[in-house]
């Protein structure tokens, strides 16, 4: 039997003595585009950070293709939130995308011609090749997101974890990104995307993980995207519930 790309057991994270995630037990099958949705503070970002060990887990474990994350970090690509970095940092778009290759270069390795070639291809895929030599501060929100995606693509991983890639981007970028995600999925890659927009969640993803500190539901979109489960996830928040009602219709 083929190894499961991503498996967590009893994954629990506590931040400053306040619990953020409780006993997350999931098995993500290969070749699926999975949306992680839930209200603010539900621990969506924390979950993917905990999977990669960016946030220490209080208990539980994570396995990437049957091995702990550290052993298989190369098989996981990451797109962090855009706001998490200082965009005035003195690097060019190309330098930033090359960072995606760092994991494969070894302790003393340097960027080789091949790495640059891959970085250029990835930039081209997201339509940012003409910007390769620009300083990153001159980019718009959508362009920043594309560059982050290109960096993750340059990792050439089997699993991609993306933290709110659609926040603050223009419509053209959103559809470009979703197209790339579908292509990756069709190549058998497994993708987890933190998402906060319910109406599009239904269209975009094969599977949904409804999260509110615990796993409320995890399954194919058609099975879990229903009023009861969404209400359970979002609690009694009326504005969101009316949005849910719109989305279900």
């Amino acid at each position: 039997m083929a190894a499961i790309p991503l498996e967590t057991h009893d994954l629990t994270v506590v931040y400053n003595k306040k619990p953020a995630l409780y006993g997350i037990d999931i098995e993500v099958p290969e070749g699926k585009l999975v949306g992680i949705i839930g209200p603010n503070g539900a621990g969506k970002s924390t979950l993917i950070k905990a999977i990669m060990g960016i946030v220490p887990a209080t208990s539980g474990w994570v396995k990437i293709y049957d091995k702990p994350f550290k052993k298989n970090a190369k098989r996981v690509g990451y797109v962090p939130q855009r706001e998490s970095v200082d965009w005035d940092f003195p690097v060019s778009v190309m330098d930033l995308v090359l960072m995606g290759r760092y994991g494969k270069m070894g302790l003393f390795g340097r960027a080789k011609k091949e790495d640059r070639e891959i970085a250029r291809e990835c930039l081209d895929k997201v339509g940012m090749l003409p910007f390769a030599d620009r300083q990153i501060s001159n980019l718009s929100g959508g362009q920043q997101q594309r560059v982050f995606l290109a960096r993750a693509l340059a990792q050439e991983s089997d699993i991609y974890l993306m933290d709110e890639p659609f926040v603050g981007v223009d419509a053209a970028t959103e559809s470009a990104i979703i197209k790339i995600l579908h292509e990756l999925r069709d190549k058998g890659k497994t993708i987890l995307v933190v998402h906060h927009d319910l109406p599009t969640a239904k269209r975009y993803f094969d599977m949904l993980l409804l999260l509110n500190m615990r796993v409320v539901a995890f399954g194919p979109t058609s099975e879990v995207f229903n009023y009861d489960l969404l209400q359970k996830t979002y609690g009694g928040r009326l504005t969101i519930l009316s949005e849910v009602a719109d989305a279900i219709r």
Partner: protein
Amino acid sequence: MRFDKMWQRLYRGIVLGCVFLGDASLRADRIGEMDSISYGGQFLRFFSMEDPLLRTVLLGSLCLGLCCGLLGSFIVVRKLSLVGDALSHAVLPGVAIGFIVAGEKDPVAIFIGATVAGLLGTVLVSLIKNTTHIKEDSSLGMVLAGFYGVGVVLITMIQKTSVGNKAGLDKFLFGQAAALTDKEVGVMAIVAFVSLLVVVVFYKQLLVGSFDAAYSKALGLPTRFFHYLLMLLLAFSVVISLQAVGAVLVSAMLIIPASSAYLLTDRMHRMLILACLFGMITGAFGAFLSYMGPNLATGPLMVLAASSVFVVCFFFSPKHGIISRWLRFRRRANRVRSENSLKAIYQVRESLGFKGEGVLLSDLGDRMRESAKEVKSRVDALVRYDLADLKVHDDSCEVYLTPEGWVRACAVVRNHRLWELYLTKQAEFEPDHVHDDAEVIEHILGEDTVRELERLLDFPTRDPHGKLIPSLTDLQRTLTYASSKGEEASGYSMPKG
């Protein structure tokens, strides 16, 4: 050895050249003449590396500048400048304790003591930050001042003892490069070499860790290890700089050269090189200045030199300097102003059915709702840029556009009208709501965007208000007409819709 000699000769040549230039410029000034020769001579002596004592001082300040520039760049881009400040103050008690333990001014004991104290200080900052709700800035401030106070008290006490008062520990406050010993410079050189080696070898890990620590962890890189390695090197650099620049101002040598470099470039590797150069130049220059006056502390002079470099970068950096930014802003403002004048001239001609080539200034004034004086200054500006000519008659003035001026005028009008049309057609704005937006965008639209707009709008000829849009081919035709035959250009009329 031969290389050494060659290098020395070359070096002396450069220094001599500098001194000669410096002297020549001062020669006119009779009063300053004596001084300038002695300054020049001293400068030569200081930088020629012949005097072994001075060589020690110079090498020490170069190592200091290198370390500070190198590690300073990292703390500047990581927004950790205050940590550098806290660290530099926190090392002081370690200096005193190192002295007490060794019983003399032993650089190795002081190095160890200071490093331990500095690291203890940073650990304490995190401890306060993590266990209470006091925020980082306050805990940094407290630790910085507290450790510094303890250090000053200890050093004052040591000064009162018989061994201590000759040791010159007070020099650790503001620095005295002249007091550097060979052994101290040896330690400095080792730290400089190790820092340089680490940064060169592990550049990629340090870069990604500084830019995006979470991503670095996600790549599986030992992020925490490299963070602490960097902090350790930072502590080393601070400690070796103490004797020369003093605890109070070390952080300035970390921050100022790196910040100056940050203004000049937006690539990390170039920033590192520039920061090291600035650090070395200002370090050596500060040491030289302090050597000129027997009681001048080195630290303030180095910082003065570094600040001068920063001031120059602040004003004149091509990208981020305020003068260059101001110039760019003025150029853009001027362009917008002339384009608006050109557009008005076009519109006056259009209202007259493109009959006659000249436009009366009075008509232009009516069109722009401006006084005769304002219009005259606008037209004068156009004449200066070769976009128009002015003809003065007895009772009136007429302005004629040059071929280039006419093309630019058409282009602006085209941009404006295309954009209005785009907003009404594609974005479904009301025709009376699009003017202000077009007013701004007409100056920015590039040739590619214009072609794209024309394609999107299916090569329109009229704007939402029914006015003709000059097209790109029209512009080119006008240009050839106008440049070959001035008369015909004046008779050129817009194509009928």
